[in-house]
């Protein structure tokens, strides 16, 4: 139980993927200009993270480890992510045009979102030891994938709210756009450091 809470709080606040692990910065800066696309992007990321977390865990556990080819991890994982993104895109297109319109253009972008590959690599580092899955490894992996995605969406939403206001603010000319976004992210990260004090 403790471990579950630790994973949830950890991936939401203490080790937030964007602000502390610096994963997924490109989409973070790219789609945080307005709130609406930020919501769509966040949902798409959660979706892809959970499904590729699931598939890569199975592939790593039942194919790579028994065959002793875990040095192929990077190649396999990125292929799994790329194909599952493509597959999800097709499924959504066929089943629900409404969701497709909301997520459509963001799905292909997610392939090169390092947060997705990051969470799968972290899962295979943390929840396997000496070639064996630790107790409850599968559940932890899915949980971490889901809450890392939620943490990503959470920070993306906060940032897009701030940036919508920032458009109207009077910033120095050379800081307009990206530089001021970095500085805002830095202050957010500083604020989130307060959560490090949580002892779990």
């Amino acid at each position: 139980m403790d471990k579950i809470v630790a994973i949830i709080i950890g991936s939401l606040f203490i080790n937030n993927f964007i602000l502390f692990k610096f994963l997924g910065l490109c989409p973070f800066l790219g789609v945080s200009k307005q709130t609406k696309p930020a919501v769509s992007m966040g949902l798409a990321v959660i979706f892809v993270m959970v499904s590729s977390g699931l598939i890569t865990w199975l592939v790593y556990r039942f194919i790579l480890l028994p065959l002793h080819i875990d040095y192929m991890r990077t190649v396999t994982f990125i292929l799994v992510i790329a194909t599952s993104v493509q597959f999800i895109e097709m499924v959504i297109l066929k089943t629900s045009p409404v969701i497709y319109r909301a997520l459509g253009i963001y799905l292909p972008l997610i392939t090169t979102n390092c947060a997705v590959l990051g969470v799968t690599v972290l899962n295979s580092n943390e929840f396997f030891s000496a070639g064996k899955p630790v107790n409850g490894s599968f559940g932890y992996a899915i949980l971490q994938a889901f809450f890392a995605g939620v943490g990503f969406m959470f920070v993306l939403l906060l940032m897009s709210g701030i940036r919508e206001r920032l458009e109207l603010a009077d910033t120095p000319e050379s800081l307009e756009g990206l530089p001021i976004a970095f500085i805002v992210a830095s202050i957010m990260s500083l604020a989130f450091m307060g959560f490090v004090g949580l002892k779990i």
Partner: protein
Amino acid sequence: MKKLWFEFIKGVWRENPIFFIVLGLCPALAVSISVNNALGMGLAVTFVLGCSNAIISMVRNFIPDKIRIPCFIVVIATFVSIVEMVLKAYAPALDRSLGIFVPLIVVNCIILGRAEAFASKNPFLPSVFDGLGMGAGFTLALLLISFIRETLGSGKLAGYSISHQFEPVLVLSLAPGALLVLGLLIGGIRWIKSLRS
């Protein structure tokens, strides 16, 4: 020859991946905590960029347009796996301190970006020089960020203590410091550019 030199040098300054194109930020921020890490990451990325650009420019006419992105990713991932294994074998300490950012070179946007924007349209030699130039620009940018963060944040340079005169600004070596330094650097470079024109 002059054209090749041009392809090389544009990556270093005019189209610097970090400061002007603003791609490949995740590793740039995460590993810039010390100059050693930054140099290791920079060299790894330069190697992958040069090799993947070379291979992709050689096979660019055989790859069907529709599946080019997966093809590029497989080429890149192969070179990243090579880097991973070499680092594990010969520089285990560096491998540990770079952590998951070694496998994550695969999704460094700048590598796929150059494959798509340059190597898939240009012949072999210019592509190699473009890759090496972009890699050099990336390395230099990383060195600059890590120099500022390490000297001011922990009072050290490449692991050696350089000054006992001042109290290090601890926040610069933590996560918020990385974002702050990069934001101010990009702002500063834009300011210098606007002064010159």
